[in-house]
């Protein structure tokens, strides 16, 4: 459009753009053999070359726009999508973030090699200028990749947390109108909330008169957890069901006493088996006699 770029920086970015356009095929061919592309496009090499082409073209258009350090430059959008898929696939195969970063960094070296080869045509000064801009462009690319990976990780963490919350709190129907929740792992506020809601919903669903909350698998009980347990028991009682807490290990029993927590309004049993016996014994006279006869 303009005749003869007077601005040296502008000239440098255009040299980079020119290089990427001219040598696009060579760059793509070299990249296709790098682990980043090779590992992702395992079926055919052509596929990898094609993907490389797309990235080279996008980088060239970023260079043409002159916004080498701008992550929001339009050319970076398709690269982000492309690389997001690739890097997440690399990450899934067990690579750390710095390993993926190194693989992305390797792309730069291939492009720099091709620039060296053109030194004779471009002249030393212009080559140096172009080199600086090329390095800048790839630095921005690395930032874009890292940012994409972090976003991806964030989503994975959120998804897994949700899955964990849902999976880790099954409600089991043990007997007619008797349900139990075996709790495993640390109880935080969010999980306690879900445990409580699941248990109370199950009480409605099974018309349960007794619910057993088994905390055998809970490593520690602090005052917050104890408070949640007591709230669950109180809610169940309001709904017309009795809630027993079982699986209180000796260490936890001591902690509860040391913390000064009053669980006297709550029925507790040492083991799930004890709680079950208690529940069945309570439910009908025959059960009670059988239990008494045993012990």
């Amino acid at each position, binding site marked *: 459009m303009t005749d003869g770029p007077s601005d040296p920086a502008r000239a440098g970015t255009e040299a980079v753009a020119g290089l990427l356009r001219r040598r696009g095929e060579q760059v793509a061919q070299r990249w296709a053999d790098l682990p980043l592309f090779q590992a992702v496009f395992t079926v055919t090499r052509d596929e990898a070359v094609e993907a490389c082409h797309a990235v080279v073209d996008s980088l060239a258009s970023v260079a043409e726009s002159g916004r080498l350090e701008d992550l929001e430059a339009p050319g970076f959008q398709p690269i982000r999508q492309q690389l997001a898929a690739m890097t997440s696939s690399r990450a899934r195969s067990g690579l750390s973030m710095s390993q993926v970063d190194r693989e992305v960094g390797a792309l730069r070296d291939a492009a720099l090699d091709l620039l060296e080869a053109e030194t004779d045509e471009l002249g030393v000064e212009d080559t140096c200028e172009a080199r600086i801009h090329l390095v800048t462009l790839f630095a921005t690319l690395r930032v874009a990749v890292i940012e994409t990976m972090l976003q991806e990780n964030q989503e994975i963490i959120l998804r897994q*947390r*949700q899955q964990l*919350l849902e999976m880790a709190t099954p409600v089991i129907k043990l007997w007619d109108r008797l349900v139990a929740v075996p709790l495993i792992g640390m109880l*935080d*506020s*969010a999980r*306690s*909330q879900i445990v409580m*809601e699941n248990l109370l919903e199950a009480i409605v669903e099974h018309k349960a008169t007794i619910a057993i909350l088994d905390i055998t698998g809970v490593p520690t009980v602090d005052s917050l957890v104890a408070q949640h347990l007591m709230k669950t028991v109180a809610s169940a009682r309001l709904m017309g069901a009795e809630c027993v807490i079982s699986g209180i290990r000796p260490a936890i029993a001591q902690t509860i006493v040391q913390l000064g927590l009053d669980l006297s309004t709550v029925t507790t049993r040492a083991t799930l088996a004890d709680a079950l016996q208690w529940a069945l014994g309570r439910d009908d006279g025959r059960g009670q006699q059988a239990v008494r006869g045993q012990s």
Partner: protein
Amino acid sequence: MSQTSAEPMRVPIRKDTDLTAVRQQVRALAQRVGFGLVQQTKLVTAASELARNTLLHGGGGAAHISVVHGERGRGVSVSFVDSGPGIPDVDLALSDGYSTAGGLGMGLSGSRRLVHEFDIGSGPGGGTRVTITSWTDSLPGGIR
């Protein structure tokens, strides 16, 4: 994103039956914003407590209900405004078991536990304004 009710919906609180209207409007917005059943119930109950306070202590007033947007996603915010005598000692009024109207003394203190944000502004003679807000993002930490 969507521009749901940029200006708050105003529900007057002048008599017993107005409390029903407040509860219904709060429930409707909480549902629209996507609250779970428990969170809906907590917010509606808190609103019911505070609306009754507005009626009994403030001599009537109004509830301003709106959908809000913030870091924690979407939320529902309800302000109860009256021009009554105000609350002379806010800290005392917020303590469990404090009651002036022969209730169970859990109205103010209890409703604070049912929502994410609770803001009270009152001076003797200056009327009372209580604002409660709950957010859709109740995952981390649960509702405290």
